[in-house]
């Protein structure tokens, strides 16, 4: 196994952004803004280059069957004798795919930001946070054990918090960043509990295995530099370990320990990938600068949840019910977000809901896959791969439109086709790609997901997938027609001019990627479980998908391309339904109600009151009691001789009485 240069020190990939984060953050940022931007961007480009080389060397070295190797790791946190967490790099097809995607999109976004953020006063701070984000995302992707993934998971959450709250003097941005962090933090609580359960049982299984058959552990240690630990993925995903896990018995009635752990971990993934109950933070996260939305809330961070489920797929597959939950939540989110997406007016919110919907796709495709028919696994990662490119392109395109028109509302734009040709072309390519029209990337990955769903007899999920395959082109072309076609609605749209080249270059590159990404033979690289029989596009599913997509486009053209009165007619007769969907089914309000009225009013305020009055009160009470008894006793000293005589006589009687009683 000839160790290529990059392969042996793959730690460079996450390390370069970290070094540049410290460098830029501490020294370059105060010095000069431009330098900070350049250094940060070049660092990420360097890291991207390393990622490509690593991919190249890895696929050279491990041609036929791809081993997941841990070329470098050091012991970071030692809890106990055989329970320690190490920091390292895990290289296998999935992590390489993610590394390539993250570094590419991140470098392009960095390049784009140089133009977009030009003139902003927190320029240096922005690039520092962006580098921190890239480092933590890469750290998450290459994590060999679940603890390092959790560590980087939190760091990703923190950097997204910092980036969303970049315009900190805008109260809406501040509350959005707070909401994002708290919701993801809440989900991370589930993730942490899942890890604790895995850690506990992993430790015990580790003990059982280490003293029973040493072969299993030896075989695991083969490819990694440090000894295997209970938290490592290789250990958790190993069939022998999973078998031990499954019969660990159940906790609190019925639910097996394995399923509970997996569901909790999925909660963490759901929080980060904004699945249904925890999706409220993503639309608000659009408060951040658009490149941030492009990088974090489209291509990289939100797919971390998908990556986590993919990474632990063997364990998920073992606990069947957990996968079902994943599938159905994914499907529901997919439909739910697509429906809301159709009614939003803010261009970035539409894209945010479309991201939600595509993430739902990826989750449902993972959910439908099983170890026997793992097509869903490959399809989901393939869709992740393609989606990253065209969604980033959409966001960056929207960014350049907003940059030109200085407003997010699609109804303020119009007729930009003539004003911004390059943005228009790239936006069109991306819209067609996401719609799933054959030559473009979206078609291939979505088709595989539908095939996987049908293949594993999930008819309902297939139906939902098909329906959403229709809705997606509808809302995408809706915003396309409204922004680029029709009259210049506002004078802002009048004076719109093309963005500077430094912003257009990334758009172009991403457009190319959006086209060719579909042709990458993903099945041969990224797979799990039984090897997939190599098959072309399954036309039986592709035809209906394309037809549905075309009808979606047609309806959008019919309603939005021409004059707008048809739309207003439609809105009237939809009436209250339209209003409910537009307000995102009032879920945000429900959350706000719960946190403000319920948690603050009925829990923390009484506790604060309780603390001040009761517990504090009891302490003051002792002080008051001593003072009060002093006051009462002072009444005895009335100065009158007779009261003294009375007390004296009384006490003698009492004493004699006691004596009489006791001595008897």
């Amino acid at each position: 196994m000839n160790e290529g240069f990059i392969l042996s020190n793959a730690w460079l990939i996450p390390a370069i952004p970290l070094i540049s984060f410290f460098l830029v953050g501490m020294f370059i940022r105060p010095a000069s803004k431009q330098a900070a931007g350049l250094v940060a961007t070049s660092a990420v480009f360097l890291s991207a280059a390393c990622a490509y080389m690593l991919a190249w060397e890895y696929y050279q070295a491990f041609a036929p069957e791809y081993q997941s190797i841990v070329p470098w790791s050091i012991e970071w946190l030692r809890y106990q004798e055989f329970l320690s967490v190490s920091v390292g790099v895990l290289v296998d097809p999935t992590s390489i795919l993610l590394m390539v995607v993250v570094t590419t999109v991140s470098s392009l976004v960095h390049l784009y930001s140089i133009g977009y953020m030009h003139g902003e006063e927190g320029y240096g701070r922005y690039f520092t946070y962006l580098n921190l984000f890239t480092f933590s995302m890469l750290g998450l992707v290459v994590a060999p054990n679940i603890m390092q993934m959790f560590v980087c998971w939190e760091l990703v959450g923190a950097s997204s918090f910092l980036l969303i709250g970049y315009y900190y003097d805008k109260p809406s941005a501040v509350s959005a960043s707070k909401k994002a962090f708290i919701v993801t933090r809440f989900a991370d609580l589930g993730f942490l509990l899942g890890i604790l359960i895995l850690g506990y049982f992993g430790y015990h299984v580790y003990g059982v295995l280490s003293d029973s058959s040493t072969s299993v552990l030896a075989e695991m240690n083969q490819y990694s530099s440090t000894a295997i630990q209970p938290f490592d993925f290789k250990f958790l995903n190993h069939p022998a370990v999973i078998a031990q896990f499954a019969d660990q018995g159940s906790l609190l009635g019925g639910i097996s320990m394995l399923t509970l752990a997996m569901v909790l971990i999925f909660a963490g993934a759901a929080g980060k990938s904004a699945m249904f109950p925890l999706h409220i933070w993503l639309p608000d996260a659009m408060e951040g600068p658009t490149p941030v939305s492009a990088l974090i809330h489209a291509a990289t961070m939100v797919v971390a949840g998908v990556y986590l489920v993919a990474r632990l797929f063997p364990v998920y597959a073992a606990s069947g019910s957990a996968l079902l939950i994943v599938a159905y939540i994914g499907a529901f989110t997919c439909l739910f977000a697509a429906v809301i997406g159709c009614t939003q007016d803010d261009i970035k919110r539409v894209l945010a809901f479309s991201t939600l919907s595509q993430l739902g796709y990826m989750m449902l495709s993972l959910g439908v896959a099983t170890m026997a028919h793992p097509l869903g696994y490959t399809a989901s990662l393939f869709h992740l791969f393609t989606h990253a490119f065209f969604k980033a392109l959409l966001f960056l395109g929207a960014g350049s439109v907003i940059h030109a028109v200085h407003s997010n509302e699609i109804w303020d734009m119009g007729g930009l086709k003539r004003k911004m040709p390059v943005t228009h072309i790239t936006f069109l390519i991306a819209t067609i790609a996401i719609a799933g029209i054959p030559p473009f990337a979206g078609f291939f990955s979505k088709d595989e997901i539908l095939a996987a769903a049908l293949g594993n007899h999930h008819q309902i999920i297939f139906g939902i997938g098909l329906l959403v395959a229709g809705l997606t082109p509808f809302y995408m072309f809706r915003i396309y027609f409204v922004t680029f076609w029709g009259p210049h609605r506002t004078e802002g749209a009048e004076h719109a001019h093309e963005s500077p080249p430094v912003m257009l270059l990334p758009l172009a590159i991403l457009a190319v990627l959006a086209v060719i990404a579909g042709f990458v033979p993903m099945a041969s690289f990224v797979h799990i479980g039984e090897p997939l029989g190599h098959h072309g596009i399954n036309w039986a599913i592709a035809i209906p998908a394309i037809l549905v997509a075309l009808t979606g486009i047609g309806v959008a053209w019919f309603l939005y391309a021409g004059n707008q009165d048809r739309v207003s007619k439609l809105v009237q007769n939809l009436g209250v339904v339209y209003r409910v969907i537009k307000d995102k089914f009032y879920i945000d309000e429900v959350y706000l109600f719960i946190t403000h009225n319920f948690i603050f009013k009925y829990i923390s305020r009484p506790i604060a009151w309780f603390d001040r009055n009761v517990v504090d009160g009891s302490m003051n009470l002792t002080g008051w009691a001593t003072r009060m008894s002093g006051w009462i006793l002072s009444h005895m000293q009335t100065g009158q001789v007779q009261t003294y005589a009375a007390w004296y006589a009384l006490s003698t009687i009492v004493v004699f009485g006691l004596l009489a009683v006791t001595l008897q």
Partner: protein
Amino acid sequence: MWNEAAGTFVFYLIAFFSIFTALTVVYTRRILRAAIALACVLVCSAGFYVMLDFEFLAGVQVMVYVGGIVVLMLFAIMLTSSAELIVDRPSFQRRFVGVLISIGFFFVTTTAFWATDFPVAESTKDTLFTKVSIEGEKAEPLDDVVELGKKLLDYGPEGYVLPFEIISLLLLSVMIGGIIIARKPPQLENKE
């Protein structure tokens, strides 16, 4: 037989009379009447001492106590011009506490007496007025005044010479003290 009966009757007669007068000392609103009642009580107890064959003590009681102290009190009442002053009855709360405590005291003491069986000498268990001992004890009556004199000045282990001296000292100091306190201090006069 008649003799004992008369003795018991006299005892109860004087006892009730003394208790009644004691109550008037305490209860009456006019101080003068209280003083006179006190004199009666003291005379009754002198009668008791006589019944218990202590004539000398009865004499001392009548002379010193009644003649001296009660007369002194009368003077004091006159001096403080509160002879005709009608003192209003103390508040119910004070009286209630007073009654409570005195009854309490009474019960505690009686239970104490009840619980202890005093080593009463056989000779006088059931007789009264007889100092004469029945067989086995000294026959002739005890000339108590001579005995008293001897005991007062006997400085042996049995004697009471020390208390005797102390009492004399006490009486002397009280006399001087009383005079100093009661006289009109000259300098206080002219200052006012």
